[in-house]
């Protein structure tokens, strides 16, 4: 089947490009540094825990902070890899002329787009899962803390990766590689701005709310990250610390104490499906 051949080809190609290997090696380095820093930081925190009025809460605060921070790092790294790996998935092949001998084969053009999409989706999903669980595994190894809802949090991150992949898939059929990359980076980095604006404004008005909604519709990655951060907070925190400063302090531009709304979740799934389809339709009509 043509689609699966293209998927296999895409995976093979990704591993033959130095980009993916370089990212994997750098990640190993990053994880090693993280393990060293974590060990050092936790040793200090554990030593001073007894000095605080509530040592358990003090340690929980550390565990939560380091857990959320590490998964946020995984979210950023996964987004970065998605962009650099996939911005040229169609446009670069067209620019290099390598598509001529593939598109002229007995294949529907949609098979090429969806085959490539599937290949990258597999690579990026596995990468994201490995990264998240390695971070959380290291934290568990040193602190004994592991988020009870790690899987739903990972699901949100995976969906965020697929959202970004959908965007680059479409962009790659519409724009040259560099333009597609610039758009993806601007949107991915720009999306959290809405959260920052909401934090800064003491009384968020209707306009700010509308802008946030619009941003989340254009690129729901930040909303999905907030959804993931919600699942990283243990459920007992919500019940035991309701209304306390500790819980309110977790409602930041980086984190949320509310789950992703079902409407936005549905929109993110629709986004992942519709954008590649539009890309395939566009590619079907494109002269090569």
């Amino acid at each position, binding site marked *: 089947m043509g689609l699966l051949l293209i998927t296999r080809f895409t995976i093979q190609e990704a591993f033959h490009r130095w980009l993916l290997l370089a990212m994997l090696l750098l990640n190993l380095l990053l994880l090693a540094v993280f393990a060293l820093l974590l060990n050092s930081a936790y040793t200090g925190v554990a030593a001073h825990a007894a000095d605080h009025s509530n040592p358990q809460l003090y340690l929980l605060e550390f565990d939560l902070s380091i857990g959320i921070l590490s998964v946020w790092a995984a979210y950023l790294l996964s987004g970065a890899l998605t962009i650099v790996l996939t911005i040229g998935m169609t446009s670069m092949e067209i620019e290099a002329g390598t598509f001529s001998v593939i598109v002229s084969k*007995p294949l529907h053009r949609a098979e090429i787009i969806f085959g490539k999409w599937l290949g990258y989706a597999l690579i990026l999903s596995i990468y994201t899962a490995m990264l998240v669980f390695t971070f959380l595994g290291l934290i568990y190894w040193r602190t004994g803390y592991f988020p009870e809802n790690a899987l739903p949090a990972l699901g949100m991150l995976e969906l965020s990766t697929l959202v970004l992949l959908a965007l680059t898939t479409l962009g790659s059929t519409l724009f040259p590689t560099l333009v597609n990359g610039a758009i993806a980076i601007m949107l991915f980095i720009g999306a959290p701005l809405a959260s920052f604006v909401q934090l800064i404004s003491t009384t968020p008005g209707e306009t700010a709310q509308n802008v946030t909604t619009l941003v989340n519709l254009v690129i729901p990655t930040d909303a999905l990250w907030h959804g993931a951060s919600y699942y990283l907070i243990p459920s007992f925190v919500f019940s035991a610390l309701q209304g306390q400063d500790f819980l309110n302090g977790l409602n930041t531009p980086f984190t949320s104490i509310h789950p992703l709304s079902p409407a936005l979740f549905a929109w993110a799934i629709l986004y992942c499906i519709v954008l590649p389809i539009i890309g395939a339709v566009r590619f079907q009509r494109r002269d090569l």
Partner: protein
Amino acid sequence: MSNDSRLPAVEIQGLRKVYQQIIAVDDISLVTYRGEAFGFLGPNGAGKSTVVKILTGLVAPTKGTVRVLGQPVNHVEIRRRVGYLPEFPSFHRWFKGRDFLEFHGRLYGLRGAMLEKRIREVLEMVGLAGREHQKLGTFSKGMLQRIGLAQALIHKPDLVILDELVSGLDPVGQRDMRELLRALREEGTSIFLNSHLLADVEAICDRVAIINQGRILKVGAPAELFDKKKVLEVRVDHVSEELLQHLSSAALSIQREEDDPCCLLIEIQHDEQAADIADIIVHACGARLYTLAPRRLSLEQIFFQTIDALNQGN
């Protein structure tokens, strides 16, 4: 070409392609037949590659119909019977030769022992046996052309579409490829060869279409198109007015070579007139004759002659 192969291989009717406001192909109609080697000859920018891209489904026509082996060109299944080598073969450099052919063979639907057999056969055919474990990134331009031809032939296509076959090859490579194409033609494979090289189409093709500025100027057998008029290249010690006057009575036309004042290009109707030309030069005018040889018209000259003839016809 056998007579039982009068089924069409390529049918183009009223084909037009406009890129924004630039007309690349303007109302082209032609038919090539099964088992025929058909040459598409024209200068760079004539619209040849656009036609080939339309034939291979890479480009959609603005207007007109195109059928390949009896089916509309946008039917995916018909592509199982067509092989294509683009003008500038650009392949994924990380592929090894064998893996590259395996991938393309699989795209054509080949599997298992048949695929393995065909990989070995086509590598042998294009002269790359023993190079199957070499990465394409280390291939020379000529080797890329050869592996490109191998992927176009791996599924034993009924029709091979080739865009500028020998552009990256050295003389030995060009000879090998021409022999290979002649062998394919002998086996009954239809060939559509895009080229700006007269030698290519003359050596391989049964019929040729000359295309310029998006329009077909002429279609016919190479001998009809290129050998109608005979041109002699004549070099003498001195070209006098008297000599030119005498020659003009026996020749259809006379041209002086711009870069060689002692060289003339004399167009004659029949081969026998060459003897008359020699007689005039040596005996009637007393000049010394250094060279008298038939000269093939260059592609450029054929274009200009064809265009002039069309203008006169209008």
